[in-house]
């Protein structure tokens, strides 16, 4: 990583330039860039669609946040070097104004030419939203908004940190609570606190009272924390006391996890069941990818084997063969998936890194195509799939375990088992061999690790757990179609492991919440949610390559101390032919 590189600290040139000059060219550039972003958000349809989601009912929508954000952010960026309030207001205002003018231009052009031939979303509704319903007569409105928001953001940046930080946190909290209003409202409703729920939330979004309450609580809480210095006090406690403080926290967390689906209602139960399933599969791939470093993009192949095994064993419909209960089919699902892992793994595990990823990618596609093919139509039902797969636990529809809730519990229990297996193995001889292979395959072999055997074990275990995931998925959905066996399953699971932090158990949980849970909650935003999914992935890799919650070792590696020794100092000395130093 850092070893062998020479860090040369270059003095920032900016120091040489007198700090008082306002760089108009930069400000114009930032404003134009902001304008481009704002136009993009409007014309691609993000603003109109986000506009359907209320953050604070009747006050502000998610679309307006996107729009106003695209004006405020250039203002804040343009003013970040300003030293006085006047300079900041000027720079921020001008940048915001330029951004707003781009939208003004859009309204004016749109009134003359019908842009809908090219941009489907340049609709009257969009213009109406931009001009607050005034039409062309209100074309000036975005420009003024830009001026005010840009200047406002710039001024906010000039506030002292002790004021800015609580306010920023308060606003962020209102934003997040508003965004997840539906999710937070459901438990209040089902806990019988209907009045409280009505007071805080409308159907989708916060009430004004709720927003003010959230903001106040967070700001006051933050200020109180700062005054008392909670963080410093906790840090000052001896280690055992800190451990004791963590225990009730863990207990509460476990309690919440257990009762969660009962509070959230059927829709959210489905979402968290899916999240739990991906956590389980993430733990499985974490062995293959996180520990042994085998970039397996064919995860879905084994998922398919597990799902179809359960389908064939248990289905009550046409293609069901045995009509056995789910729990009888489950071990076979894992066994067959593991056998597939062994058969597919053996020939390709000598391939390294990226090439392995491509080869495994092929497997996923082959299985996907086979499942839908005419060849296997008599067995697997082709595109019609296998339907009528019974739930793992047969209960009356009024029972609390009916529907996705039982899948949630089943997936969580198995996820815990997989995590346990991974942790146990990591601490022993085999886990060490896996990590050694991940670090340096050649050297691992030279110290006595049998590469094929060791890699194959990781691959087979990953495959078995993928089969387990597929089996539970079949139980969740109640049917299995070739269209469920797609590349996105593999990509999602791999992304969960990488975004969460390679080799880290809590990382996988966070990764699944972020990458599976959040997109599911924003279904009404259509495919745009995947745009943000993509942005999030890029941002992660740029700013936090070790993952959301890296394993202890990766964190140490990337963040502790820059005193890394020059590892190969000896190699940098040129020893040329003819010397005997």
């Amino acid at each position, binding site marked *: 990583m850092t070893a062998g590189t020479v860090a040369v600290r270059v003095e920032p040139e900016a120091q040489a330039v007198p700090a008082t000059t306002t760089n108009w060219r930069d400000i114009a550039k930032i404003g134009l860039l902001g304008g481009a972003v704002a136009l993009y958000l409007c014309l691609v349809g993000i603003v109109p669609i986000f506009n359907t989601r209320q953050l604070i009912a009747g006050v502000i929508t998610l679309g307006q946040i996107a729009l106003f954000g695209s004006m405020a952010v250039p203002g804040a960026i343009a003013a970040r070097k300003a030293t006085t309030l006047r300079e900041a207001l000027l720079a921020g205002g001008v940048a915001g104004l330029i951004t707003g003018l781009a939208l003004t231009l859009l309204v004016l052009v749109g009134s003359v030419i019908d842009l809908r031939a090219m941009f489907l979303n340049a609709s009257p509704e969009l213009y109406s939203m931009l001009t607050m319903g005034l039409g062309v007569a209100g074309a000036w409105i975005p420009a003024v908004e830009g001026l005010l928001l840009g200047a406002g953001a710039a001024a906010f940046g000039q506030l002292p940190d002790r004021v800015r930080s609580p306010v920023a946190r308060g606003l962020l909290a209102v934003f997040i609570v508003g965004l997840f209003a539906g999710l937070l409202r459901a438990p209040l409703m089902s806990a019988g606190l209907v009045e409280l729920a009505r007071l805080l939330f409308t159907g989708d979004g916060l009430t004004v009272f709720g927003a003010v309450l959230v903001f106040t609580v967070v700001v006051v809480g933050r200020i109180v924390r700062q005054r008392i210095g909670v963080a410093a006090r906790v840090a000052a406690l001896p280690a055992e006391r800190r451990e004791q403080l963590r225990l009730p926290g863990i207990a509460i967390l476990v309690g919440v996890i257990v009762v969660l689906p009962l509070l959230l209602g059927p829709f959210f139960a489905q979402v968290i069941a899916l999240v739990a399933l991906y956590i389980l599969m993430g733990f499985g791939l974490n062995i293959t990818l996180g520990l042994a470093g085998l970039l397996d993009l064919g995860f879905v192949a084994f998922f398919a084997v597990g799902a179809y095994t359960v389908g064939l064993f248990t289905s009550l419909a046409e293609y069901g063969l045995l009509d056995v209960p789910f729990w009888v089919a489950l071990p076979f699902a894992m066994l067959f998936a593991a056998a597939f892992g062994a058969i597919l793994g053996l020939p390709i595990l000598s391939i390294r890194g990226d090439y392995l990823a491509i080869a495994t990618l092929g497997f996923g596609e082959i299985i996907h195509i086979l499942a839908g093919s005419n060849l296997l139509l008599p067995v697997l039902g082709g595109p019609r799939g296998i339907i009528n797969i019974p739930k793992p636990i047969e209960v009356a529809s009024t029972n609390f375990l009916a529907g996705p809730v039982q899948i949630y519990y089943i997936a969580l229990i198995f996820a815990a088992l997989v995590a346990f297996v991974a942790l146990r193995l990591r601490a022993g001889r085999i886990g060490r*061999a896996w990590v050694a292979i991940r670090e340096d395959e050649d050297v691992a072999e030279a110290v006595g*690790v049998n590469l094929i055997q060791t890699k194959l074990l990781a691959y087979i275990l990953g495959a078995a757990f993928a089969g387990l995931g597929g089996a539970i998925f079949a139980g969740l959905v109640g049917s299995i179609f070739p269209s469920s066996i797609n590349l996105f399953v593999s990509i999602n699971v791999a992304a969960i492991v990488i975004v969460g932090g390679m080799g880290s158990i809590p990382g996988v949980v966070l990764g699944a919440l972020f990458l599976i849970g959040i997109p599911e909650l924003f279904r009404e935003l259509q495919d745009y949610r995947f745009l943000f999914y993509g942005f999030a992935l890029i941002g992660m890799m740029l700013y936090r390559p070790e993952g959301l919650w890296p394993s202890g070792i990766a964190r140490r590696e990337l963040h502790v101390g820059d005193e890394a020794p020059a*590892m190969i100092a000896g190699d940098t000395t040129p020893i040329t*032919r*003819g010397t005997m*130093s």
Partner: protein
Amino acid sequence: MTLLETRAVTKRFGGLLAVNKLDFEVDQGAIVSVIGPNGAGKTTFFNCIAGFYAITSGEILLDGQPIHKLRRDQIAHLGVSRTYQNIRLFANMTAMENILVGQHHHLHSTWIGTVLGTKAVREDEKRAQDEAGRLLRYVGLRGKGDMLASKLPYGDQRRLEIGRALANKPRLLLLDEPTAGMNPAETAQLTDFIRNLRDELGITILLIEHEMRVVMGISERITVLDYGEKIAEGNPAEIQSNPRVIEAYLGRGGAADLGIASAASASATNPGDPGAPTV
């Protein structure tokens, strides 16, 4: 008694003959050095012995058994360990874990046993940890077991690499420039350490080394390679006075004493293409 023997070992990379019909022997319990100018094929030869390269022709025998068709891990199981010219530790593992990986084939935990945490596995692991702790102390890394290998100082990394090699309980230890990048005091310390490995543990040692004080100080036999061929073999005194060796190192006409040849002589010779003949 011969521990390692190579018969007409040849390694060719395309048109480049890196090792050419090399016959070579290492006696049980000996300390043998391979020296030679840069590009002479020393590390290639090492890589052939340790199974990193498949040899083009010839035979490599350990205790009379051919090993040149075996995988690296099989060669390691037969008791051959090595270190690397540019240190190759498992950077994201702790010092302790690096040594534990080195013990891999002396441990017997199965994956099922590990998951279940059986008594046998726990005892196996306990023994491994004790042994690894002992080895850490032996190579002078007491108390540094929990440090990440990549965060250790350079000299400690060299020592850890030797510790990892020792964890395999080798009969033959291949050391590729163990003192590279070390100061004179560290070099002297390491030289004693290497000698002790043979004297105390009875490990046969084969080393590549540029530092002539080390080579002449501890080797019982020295083999000199140039352009992949053996140009001389003998004890330190014989090598120091061998005209072909002097020529290979210093070019024709060079007369400096090998033992005190300094880097200054580098400027007098052609540092360019290692395949080009010396003038």
